[in-house]
């Protein structure tokens, strides 16, 4: 795929040797990687269509080193791209030719577990699932669960404000992080929040969460941990049409039920998943819902009965409740393997991530069908049905002339449609480089300028992760200018107010 990145600075490229040497003074030994063959593993993230070798890779192991590297880069005007595990699906961790790739994978320790205050303090390179594993012995877990949870880092989760199937009930990363330590581009170490709730001033933690590595480098995270629900059971409900499945979802919520998870798959996704993991999905339905209820057994049994009744009232043709932990796991196995399953039926696929108001689902599915015909590409849909977050998977073959380009155009059209019906470009995967140029579909100039002014407060030289999120880089001096000139704006017509 082609994406315009900021033009690399010749001045930096020509100083590469000196820069590498200076970084070696800060991070000794194997912590600085500059050989092309060794840097190759870092040349892309989960969005593998974009590749670029960085200027140099640095893997610090202390906060002091992170601070010193950033301070050095700030002083020398060298861009820095933070990276966790590199599973981003939007190219957020795509390296820059003239930029240092700062990899946090050595920050992999759980620092403290405090059950009485239900929190854990961890380094940013700890994996999402690693947190749950660390506290599982005491019956606790960390709730947000991206499908990439075996691999993705908590630092990356904070940077992307990641979600997962359980976010409908338990919230996104932003709702489960109590505090962070981060380092600014100037090398200043700051703390936001901690074991207490809410900020004492502006909600900088709220701004940092989901900032895609553009505002600071996260070096420690305090997360909320929760007691595991007593039981969890899932029910598979199949429908002859996706409209009926959509109605079912709306009725469940209208009943006041917020399931632990509520996922939908369309026929192509169901078939691919079933062929791959044999989850026991019905393959003769157009839409399949997986609804998981968790909590005390009394609650789960009570609500399962209600959900089954709602399913039947909405025309369900199959309805199966998990009878054991194994069966529940099997129901999820198909959904969680949906991406690789689709990967088996197509040489390549492109995963989209728009969110829509749920009621618009039939319109958006119909729109996608028409686009699928127009572009001559198949699409399979998995969908966080509870919160309207779509993951259309566009199937293509990169070896076929023009298919990649068509897949991109198809994807862009889907996202435009999402915005048109009142939704957004990205529900959980981030803007990165992938959706950067679509930002104007959702935001006007003034909207984006106000976002970039946040950037100016944190990083006025635009050195952290430049070229991501914003289609145009306005210089902070330009953004700072006031366009209201004394005397030129007449005072408003006071009696009106």
């Amino acid at each position, binding site marked *: 795929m082609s994406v315009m990145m900021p033009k690399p600075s010749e001045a930096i490229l020509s100083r590469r040797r000196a820069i590498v040497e200076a970084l070696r003074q800060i991070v000794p030994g194997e912590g600085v990687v500059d050989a092309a063959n060794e840097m190759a593993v870092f040349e892309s993230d989960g969005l593998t269509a974009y590749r670029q070798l960085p200027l140099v890779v640095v893997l610090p192991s202390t906060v002091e080193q992170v601070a010193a590297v950033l301070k050095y880069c700030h002083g020398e005007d060298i861009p820095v791209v933070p990276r966790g595990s590199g599973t981003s699906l939007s190219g957020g961790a795509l390296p820059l030719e003239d930029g240092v790739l700062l990899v946090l994978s050595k920050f992999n320790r759980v620092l403290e577990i405090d059950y009485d205050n239900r929190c854990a303090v961890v380094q940013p390179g700890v994996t999402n699932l690693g947190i749950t594993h660390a506290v599982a012995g005491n*019956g606790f877990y960390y709730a947000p669960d991206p499908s990439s949870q075996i691999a993705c880092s908590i630092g990356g989760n904070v940077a992307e404000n990641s979600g997962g199937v359980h976010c409908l009930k338990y919230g996104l990363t932003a709702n489960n992080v109590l505090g962070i330590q981060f380092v600014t581009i100037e090398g200043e170490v700051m703390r936001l929040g901690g074991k*207490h709730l809410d900020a004492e001033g502006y909600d900088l933690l709220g701004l940092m969460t989901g900032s895609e590595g553009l505002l600071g480098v996260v070096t420690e995270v305090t997360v909320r941990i929760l007691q595991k629900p007593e039981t969890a059971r899932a029910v598979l409900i199949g429908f002859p049409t996706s409209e009926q499945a959509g109605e079912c979802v709306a009725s469940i919520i209208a009943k006041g039920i917020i399931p632990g998870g509520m996922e939908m798959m369309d026929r192509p996704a169901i078939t691919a998943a079933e062929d791959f993991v044999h989850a026991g999905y019905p393959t003769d339905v157009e839409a399949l819902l997986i609804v998981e209820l968790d909590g005390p057994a*009394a609650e789960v049994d009570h*609500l399962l009965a209600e959900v089954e009744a709602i399913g039947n009232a909405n025309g369900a043709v199959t309805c199966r409740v998990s009878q054991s932990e194994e069966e529940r796991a099997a129901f999820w196995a198909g959904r969680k393997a949906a991406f690789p399953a689709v990967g088996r039926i197509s040489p390549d696929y492109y995963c989209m991530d728009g969110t829509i108001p749920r*009621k618009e689902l039939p319109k958006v599915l119909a729109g996608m069908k028409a686009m699928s015909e127009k572009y001559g590409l198949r699409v399979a849909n998995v969908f966080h049905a509870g*919160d309207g977050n779509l993951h259309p998977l566009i199937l293509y073959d990169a070896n076929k002339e023009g298919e990649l380009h068509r897949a991109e155009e198809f994807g862009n059209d889907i996202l435009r449609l999402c915005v048109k019906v009142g939704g957004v470009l990205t529900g959980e995967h981030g803007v990165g480089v992938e959706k950067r140029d679509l930002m104007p579909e959702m*935001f006007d100039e003034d909207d984006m300028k106000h976002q970039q002014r946040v950037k100016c407060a944190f990083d006025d030289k635009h050195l952290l992760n430049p070229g991501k999120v914003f289609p145009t880089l306005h210089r902070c001096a330009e953004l700072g200018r006031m366009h209201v000139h004394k005397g030129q*704006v007449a*005072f408003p017509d006071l009696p009106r*107010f």
Partner: protein
Amino acid sequence: MNSSARMTYASIEKSILRPETTEDIRDIVAAAVSAQEPLAVEGTGSKRGLGRPVQAARTLSLTKMSGVTLYEPEELVLSAKAGTPIAEIEALVDENNQRLEFEPMDYGPLHGLEAGQGTLGGVVACNLSGPRRLKQGAARDHILGVRAVSGRAEIFKSGGRVVKNVTGYDLSKGLTGSYGTLAVMSEITIKVLPKCETETTLVLRGLTDGEAAGAMAASMGSAAEVSAAAHLPAYVSSRVMDGELGNEAATAIRIDGFGPSVEARATHLGRALEKVGKLERLEPEASRRLWRDVRDVRPFVDGTDKPVWRLSVTPTRSHEIVMSLRMQAAIDAFYDWQGGLVWLRMEAGEPAADLVRETIRRFGGGHATLVRASESVRAATAVFQPQPGPLAGLSRRLKEQFDPAGVLNPGKMG
């Protein structure tokens, strides 16, 4: 603009400006910037007693920007103009068996005002929440989008109307809790959730603050999905529910949800708590009254302006903070959020800010905000927790980016 009706800025000293549209707000801010005269921003002013007194010639009041503009119960979303009374919103969602999950508190009574006067904009600008904050988050966790006018007199929006959204920086969270110092919000979209079918509260009697901390931690760490945990020391307990609870210390644990589930969880947790002390149980109506009183700081609604602090600290350390303070000053205190929220009344009338903050620092950190005091005390005290140098610098830069001329609520958060 009708120029014949135009007045000069100077001629309307102390006037209250009541915009009716976002564009009106923009024009007012533009004029304030041109004239270099700051504005005090308010919904209806119910929380005027919060923060540093603002020195501004004019007040921008949101009272004429009122009304729910979108409510789709099945989509769990509601948008309203910022000046919409929060009571109106709560009544509307209640008709649909829904609620604002963050249980926003009402500062009115604490400040000697009538209850139920606040606006949506005020609730969001102060990031209000209530007892359920512990489990379900504050206003910041339920805001989906805003439309606002910054101190640059530019209209901007952020977020949207869907829950899952990571498109661009989360400016909505940035404005939440900014006390009207970054931008004037004109329209706000929030998440609403189904109301609980029923609730009950288990009350342990006679525990010391330290014992209560242990009981609350155990309850929160159980599978009972507790939605609120508070401790009212002896005598404080008599100042809620019109005295019904009596004088004995009360440690209250709320369980809510579907009927059969509440019953099962209350029974299960009750068995464990019985071993800790004498246990009582409140029926739904009594439970609701108790938590409303805890939420609105009823024990300190006393018609005075004795300083009241709001402390956000590590839950299990708060009883140590209170104990230490008791040795050095005349205070009265009670706890919400499993102890993570401490309400502290200074009986001698002095705010003792340094003592309070130094004590918090010694026992695990956190922050203290002076939420009630006479105007002269508020003018002389750091009402908000002072931030360490570098962080204060960052906050200042953010303010300068959004309000370079310093026209919005100058000094409010200083």
